[in-house]
């Protein structure tokens, strides 16, 4: 399969159609965890939704417009990590991710993010990578901060999720900041 190893027990895997039932089960089991932040999370999330998402991920990937992959930890699907569209005009993209409640607090997303940022800047030659995290989603904001991203501003009432307006905090990292941070000893 198409994969990117992150650590010994963690890797990103391209979604395949046969993952659909596993993805459905994971999203349904995590409905209450995801619903406050993700407009697509629904207790009725089904196989057709998953197949649509998987085919969209494949389309994005085969045309070289970034990727969306499953996060697999100890051979279990625990979430998703990907880039959104890549703008070649501005050499930029944004990141998106979610993880099951049972897999939180282990730095899995941050570990994936480090590898994805290296790919964005070194392989794709991008200049800017950004992400939006809901203002109240402290765990997501911490990921951006751990990845060395700078808070740029707050997009007020930018998303409507479950009938609730979410203000989104925009974070970004520029190529030179990423290189500078990477060259620093840890």
């Amino acid at each position, binding site marked *: *399969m*198409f*994969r*990117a190893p992150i650590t010994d027990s963690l890797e*990103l*895997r*391209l979604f*395949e*159609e*046969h993952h659909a039932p596993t993805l459905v089960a994971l999203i349904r089991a995590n409905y209450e965890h995801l619903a406050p932040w993700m407009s697509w999370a629904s207790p009725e999330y089904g196989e057709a939704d998953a197949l649509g998402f998987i085919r969209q991920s494949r*389309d994005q*990937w*085969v*045309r*070289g417009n970034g*990727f969306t*992959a499953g996060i697999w930890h100890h051979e279990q699907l625990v979430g998703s990590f990907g880039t959104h569209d890549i703008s*070649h005009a501005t050499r930029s993209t944004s990141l998106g991710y979610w993880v099951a409640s049972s897999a939180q607090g282990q730095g899995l997303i941050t570990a994936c993010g480090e590898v*994805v940022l290296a*790919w964005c800047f070194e*392989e794709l030659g991008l200049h800017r990578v950004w992400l939006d995290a809901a203002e109240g989603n402290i765990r997501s904001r911490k990921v951006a901060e751990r990845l060395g991203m700078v808070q740029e501003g707050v997009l007020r009432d930018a998303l409507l999720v479950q009938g609730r307006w979410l203000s989104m905090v925009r974070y970004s990292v520029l190529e030179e900041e990423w290189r500078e941070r990477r060259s620093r000893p840890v």
Partner: protein
Amino acid sequence: MLRLQVRPESWLRPLVARDASLLFEHVEANREHLREWLEEIDALADEAATRYWLEQAVLRAREGRSLLLGYFKRGMLIGTVGLHHIDRADASTEVGYWLAEEHQGQGLMTAAVSAVVMYVFEEWRLNRVEIVCPEENTRSRAIPERLGFVLEGQRRQAMMLRSWPYDLCDYGLLASDWVRMNEQRAAHRRSS
């Protein structure tokens, strides 16, 4: 980012439009070698034509009809493996490939085709993989033969190359053949 690993230092990933200069350089360095059995390579005459050729490949990939993979060794493009005529209804596909001359003779392409065959059987749940080789292209034919493909037939004068007719050998491998071979290999490992 996401790779189909072949060996520790070699992997496959889809080629996209921005790989045009990379692919063109590879083709230029191997043009005479590739031309011997692949007249289509003439279409990749310059970088712009190569970009167009890749864009067409990406369109077919988006429609699910084919998938063109670049074969990399230590970051260098050394060949391609393509999945063509992907047919989900009949659960079959055809694999095609080429390899830079200097990387021949190390089993590199056999390993890559083997990885792709495993991928389509296990991840796409296909049932049948075909490989078509000109009867006289012995290097190309050695790959399906090493991987246990069955020579199912020979089509007479089915390919014209520089206005000369060649017979084509049709090789086929079924998912059940693959499972059986893996079981035999595992049994062999246990007994040795």
